[in-house]
């Protein structure tokens, strides 16, 4: 029997109630993704409702765009279709916090800020701090594999996500992983959901590993005359028994934006205070100068790092950082960069905004980092820019075929975020 918009609307309404569904012009326009205006905006209040919506969408052939805070809707290719936007911010409960186990299970729509406020009572921490994380949902942070400065010590979601409850494209509720800190029971399904942009399932609940908040820290600003000197300091720091929490490399422009400098580049490292002397000695040996970092540095840095309409993440080796900084400065005089140097990452806000100019910068940087196995992903840019280049960059044919195989196996009808992911999946 034919599926009509009218009968779908009726079914959605029966599922979600009037408070959970909008189809007025204003709501639809607000929820537009890259200019595609959805026919419905669903705001489920329970995971059961998410299952129902996806079962319906699957059978009716609708394209569903899951979203949290909406901060990363400009990540990836412009979507091929967008019939229904699934706003998950209503699923924001802490389901189970076991402080003595250092684990927490939350609904995916909770923001990192709301969770942090709860955890603070027991001096615990989910060490996930990409710029603006406080307002972003944990589901969104997981789906985009976001990371910030604390990655230097604590790693990424790969090291933090223990279990995940998700809804498959056809509405089937599924669990993967475990609620304990150590498990090898079956395939590590949570890994598959990290950074997948919701294309294999909609994230519903997350079980996460927590850490004790570190003891008293100090932060040191190590300024260098040349990017190469900053890189030398990073290499020396990593090849030492010091245990920094954050190792951020900033270019001169970012340093200036944070009210520091002038210098060609700088590294901000923080660690327990007792290690301060050793940090200073290492910096001097690498030919850099050391100063205490202003109290509000990390807040300033976070604010500056969220700016920019066109933002890239450049991944290179630790030994490729200086060359990348030089290339960025040459390619775009208005760019500024800062990133997790311990993992060879630079987050770059470009000065140029015209699609061909951005495409040229991205192409040059990709050419630079490709030999070392690096890449450049456009984290955020207007639709016109992302239509003029491949925001993800090239993926080898072998892995891409497996990724396509996964998408074919778990979302053959292309319900979930169609077109946005790597290879147009």
């Amino acid at each position: 029997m034919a599926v009509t918009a009218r009968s779908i609307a009726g079914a959605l309404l029966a599922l979600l109630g009037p408070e959970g569904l909008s189809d007025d012009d204003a709501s639809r326009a607000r929820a537009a993704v890259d200019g595609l205006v959805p026919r419905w905006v669903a705001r489920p209040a329970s995971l059961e409702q998410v299952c129902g919506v996806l079962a319906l969408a699957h059978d009716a052939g609708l394209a569903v765009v899951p979203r949290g805070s909406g901060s990363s809707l400009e990540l990836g290719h412009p979507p091929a279709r967008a019939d229904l936007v699934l706003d998950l911010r209503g699923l924001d409960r802490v389901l189970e916090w076991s402080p003595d186990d250092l684990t927490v299970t939350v609904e995916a729509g909770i923001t990192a800020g709301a969770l942090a406020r709860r955890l603070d009572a027991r001096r615990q921490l989910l060490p996930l701090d990409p710029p603006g994380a406080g307002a972003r949902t944990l589901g969104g942070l997981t789906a985009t594999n976001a990371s910030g400065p604390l990655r230097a010590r604590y790693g990424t979601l790969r090291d933090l996500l223990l279990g995940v409850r998700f809804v498959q494209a056809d509405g089937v509720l599924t669990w993967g992983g475990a609620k304990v800190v150590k498990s090898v029971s079956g395939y590590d399904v949570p890994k598959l959901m990290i950074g997948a942009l919701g294309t294999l399932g909609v994230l519903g609940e997350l079980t996460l590993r927590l850490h004790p908040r570190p003891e008293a820290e100090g932060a040191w600003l190590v300024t260098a005359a040349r990017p190469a000197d900053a890189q030398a300091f990073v290499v020396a720091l990593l090849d030492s028994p010091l245990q920094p929490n954050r190792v951020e490399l900033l270019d001169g422009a970012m340093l200036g934006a944070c009210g520091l400098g002038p210098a060609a580049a700088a590294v901000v490292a923080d660690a327990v205070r007792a290690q301060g002397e050793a940090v200073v000695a290492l910096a001097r040996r690498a030919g850099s100068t050391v100063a205490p970092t202003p109290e509000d540095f990390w807040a300033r840095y976070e604010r500056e790092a969220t700016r920019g309409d066109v933002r890239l993440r450049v991944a290179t080796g630790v030994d490729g950082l200086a060359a990348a900084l030089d290339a960025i400065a040459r390619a775009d005089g208005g760019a500024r960069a800062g990133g997790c140097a311990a993992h060879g990452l630079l987050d770059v806000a470009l000065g140029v905004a015209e699609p061909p100019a951005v495409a040229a910068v991205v192409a040059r940087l990709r050419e630079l980092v490709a030999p070392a196995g690096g890449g450049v992903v456009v984290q955020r840019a207007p639709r016109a820019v992302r239509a003029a280049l491949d925001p993800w960059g090239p993926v080898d044919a072998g892995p891409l075929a497996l990724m396509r195989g996964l998408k074919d196996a778990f979302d053959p009808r292309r319900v979930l975020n169609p077109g946005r992911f790597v290879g147009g999946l």
Partner: protein
Amino acid sequence: MPLTRAVVEELARILGPDGLIHSAEGRLVYECDMHAFYKGAPDVVALPSDAAQVQAIVRLCRREGVPVVPRGSGTGLIGGAMAPAGGVMVGTNRMDRILELDLVNRCATVEPGLINLWLTRAVQDRGWFFAPDPSSQMVSSIGGNVGTNAGGPHCLKYGITVNHVLGLELVTGAGELVRLGGKVAERPGYDLTGVAVGSEGTFGLVTAVTVRLLHVAEAVKTVLASFPDIEAASEAVSAIIAAGIIPAALEMLDDIMIRAINEGSGADYPKGAGAVLLIELDGPAAEVEAQAARCAAICWERGALEVRVARDEAERALLWKGRKEAAGAVGRLAPTYLLQDAVVPRSKLPAIMRELVAIGARHRVQIANVFHAGDGNLHPLILYDDRNPEELERAKAANEELLRACIAMGGTVSGEHGIGLDKAKNLPLEYADADLNFMYRLRGVFDPQRLMNPQKLLPSHPACGEGFRPARPRLPDGAWI
């Protein structure tokens, strides 16, 4: 179905004259891993020396519909590196080179047959190490560690194998040689590396591994505390974690193990203690000092009989000696044992240890304990005499009951050993049909013919079959259909 002569000849052509074992006595060596309960010899054993040979083997087996079973050092504990359906076993022992050391980027690329400890030995003079440290690390291969996602005492702080694998080279079950992940972070796309680690050879055969190396810490401190009983020691473990201290390792041994170790190894663990905790802290010197003092105080508060702090490397080695020789010491307790690997939330340790004592009493079996207490990963050894079939039945019943108790407390079937043939049947205790079916389909993406290490990891269960459809949500009445 034994291999045809034509297939064996083709394998011999791929591998050269000394790359194939097909004599009956030669194959016998390969009939089991260290879980000797499960036996199944392969039809032939292939010993390739490079990825091209591995790929040629897989393509041939795929064409002929022959099972392929990977094997590293055979030290697994799950009935993994054995061939219940025959076929070709691929031993990675000849592929044991370190391909690249890149200390600036803190990583190494190695072949799968490389012995775990050899990697640390290659970099320790320069201050680096490879963190996953299963007790078998002197003999187990990194490929095997990757296959089972192996753990070890120091995983409490540093994470299990997957947290240290940056990239893999893999011959998939479809016969394709693919490179997943790599030295540089942030590859766009799905984390295929992450999901392939721990797939126990059911996705394909790993031919190279890129791993993270860690720098040794500024300071390390080892504390040994003895307690009147295992419950008090469990309370101390929970209190240490709850105090926000993540030791590098936090190991527990019970009285049965203490006796066996003292008799066997000459390690001098406190006699008469009901349990011993081995606590190792590493990190910045100042932090380690403070945390060691805090751990000692917590142990005293929880009724410790004695607390020893190692003053130097020699004393530290002595404290660890008993723990490291525990597996060997078990032999003096009973002819055979069943080994569990279940996990409970660490705050539930006191409760599960009470339950364990009760289960042992109910089934009249002796249960010895030596385990990774800090992450709630139990290793109860259920002792029995295999000459007495009735005793084996009681041991099995106790094993099953304990596993169910762990899962009822929110735990899981395996913390670090893996699933293999041994625990596949237990997965439905932990996962619903839809979850199992997802895993079944996931495996099919990498190995469409399901020839790679058959019968391992996934259970024989309706949800792990082609025709199965998980229950879907009911749509509201009045929908269009």
